[in-house]
């Protein structure tokens, strides 16, 4: 059993089943309709069903081919960079309306910059000053994007 779960194709199929189930369940109320008068549910529900079939096929094939030597595809999942990079982007989105572009962008560079395996703190800090100032000039002053530059209180 453990062997089967670690197989990449089995995991791929499971992911497809999960996504298909999500679209099938949340879309169950959409009218299916008939061929000449298709309802809004016709296309998405048929596609989700097809996806479920493909997912199931991958699971069966993967389970048959699985050997104990299969390496877990997620063994090389870079947890730290993923959390830092995605977290930094989220932080930017949260901070932008209240703290303004300069601070939000500095946070993005500071937190995101720590994700590199060969990071150097000094470089990250210099970047966190330079990048916000330069891009702030370009995006807001030159291109006129509607973002607040400074925190709300100013």
């Amino acid at each position: 059993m453990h062997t089967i779960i670690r197989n990449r194709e089995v995991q791929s199929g499971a992911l497809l089943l999960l996504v298909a189930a999500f679209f099938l369940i949340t879309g169950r109320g959409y009218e299916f309709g008939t061929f000449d008068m298709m309802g809004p549910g016709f296309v998405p529900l048929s596609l989700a069903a097809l996806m479920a079939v493909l997912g199931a096929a991958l699971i069966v094939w993967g389970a048959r081919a699985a050997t104990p030597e299969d390496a877990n595809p997620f063994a090389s999942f870079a947890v730290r960079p993923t959390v830092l990079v995605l977290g930094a982007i989220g932080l930017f989105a949260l901070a932008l309306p209240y703290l303004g572009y300069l601070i939000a962008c500095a946070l993005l560079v500071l937190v995101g910059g720590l994700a590199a395996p060969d990071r150097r703190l000094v470089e990250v800090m210099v970047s966190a000053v330079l990048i916000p100032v330069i891009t702030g000039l370009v995006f807001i002053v030159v291109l006129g994007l509607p973002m607040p530059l400074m925190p709300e209180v100013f």
Partner: protein
Amino acid sequence: MDLLANLSTGFGVAFTFDNMLYCLVGAVVGTLIGILPGLGPVATVAMLLPITYALEPTSALIMLAGIYYGAQYGGSTTAILVNLPGEASSVVTCLDGYQMAKKGRAGQALTIAALGSLFAGCVGTLLLAAVAPTLASIAVGFGAAEYFALMLLGLVAAVVLASGSPVKAIAMVVFGLVLGTIGTDINSGEERYTFGIFELSEGIDFVVVAMGVFGITEILRNLQKSDDRELVTSRIDSLMLSREDVRRSVPAVLRGTGLGSILGILPGGGALLSSFAAYTIEKRLSKHPQEFGQGAIEGVAAPESANNAAAQSSFVPMLTLGIPANATTALLMGAMMIHNIQPGPQVMNNNPELFWGLIASMWIGNVLLVILNLPMISVWVKLLKVPYRLLYPAILVFVTVGVFSIQNSTFAIYLMIGFGLLGYVLSKLEFEAAPLLLGFILGPMLEDNFRRALLVSAGDFTTFVTRPVSGALLALTAFLLFLLLSSKFRQKRETAFQEE
């Protein structure tokens, strides 16, 4: 000659100061991202799309197209000097290009890559100019059934030509199609999968998906491996080719150009596949196949010509049928839609200055690229020494601000985080992201034409088969699916992608 008259209109547009400038900017940016590993044309074009809101549509397309084919030039430089593909389609160039550089022939490898690309680019563009009007005039008479069949063919071709497992590629296309149904259903007005979120009622913007599964995922993948770039040499002595080099390269360039031009037109084909195919063919035909992998100049000339020819000819389906051949042309299509130009056969008649201006600019761009890439090579070599850890924070900022600026909403940023994570998980499971994006972009059009065709025929499915053009296209689609299932073809397909 219509063609000449059209081209002179085109050059009239392309030779204006503004458009020359945008062409140059596109070529420079394209070379830059081509040289830097870990930043591809898809992510870059997606990043710059919002900035082009403010430009004239013609200028915007000229610039974005320049980035796309410019990347094919830049990618070879990194492949030759560092043995890393600066751009996905130059993977094959690493094999012999790097070996040439190790033998002190980096200059010759760079020269043949650039000149081969120039020749291929010119031929590919000429082909585009010659074929496009005919194709467009046929496509004007297409109805919903034909469009549906055409898009289905495109999606199936994308699966056949994608590397890796075909079942997984089909699954990704379907996933993309499902994601494309999110938003308001045009026929009934009912909202699907929006969960009452206002920002989803118009559907997810394809830039958000592209930036997530290409831009963010690329960054995450680069951060998990160490960044060791070692230049084989930072001094390039001579760029001159010997007579022997020329004799061996010319047929390779010609074959690569022909192959690339044809494969580029196929949906899902494009640059990567053509360079693989060109390399394989050269090796087969060569009198001294043992030299391949040891620094054979044909091994650089053929794939580099092929990938640039394909980059140009992949504009054919987009400009004439409104169907993207790959992820980058899909983004360019998006750029046209931003400016209220519906891509398709009407573009040529409704916006001739845009159509022919873009084509003419490709010639200018290719010439600019040779100048940028050969005499100025030392400038780019310096750039290669900038480590990735200094680069990616700036990329992050551009990606994030770019997504924000589509609708000036932070919601798009949160969505992109989700797609970034999804893209990374998918890459771990060896799913390809390109079919997903293609399905996502074609999805709404595919559904609309499917439903309209069946509405017209009162639910009769034979409409797809009895209409001659649609029937022929579907037969071709079925043939491709059959090929995909036949085991002999599968083996060939696998070796084509694993030529080493």
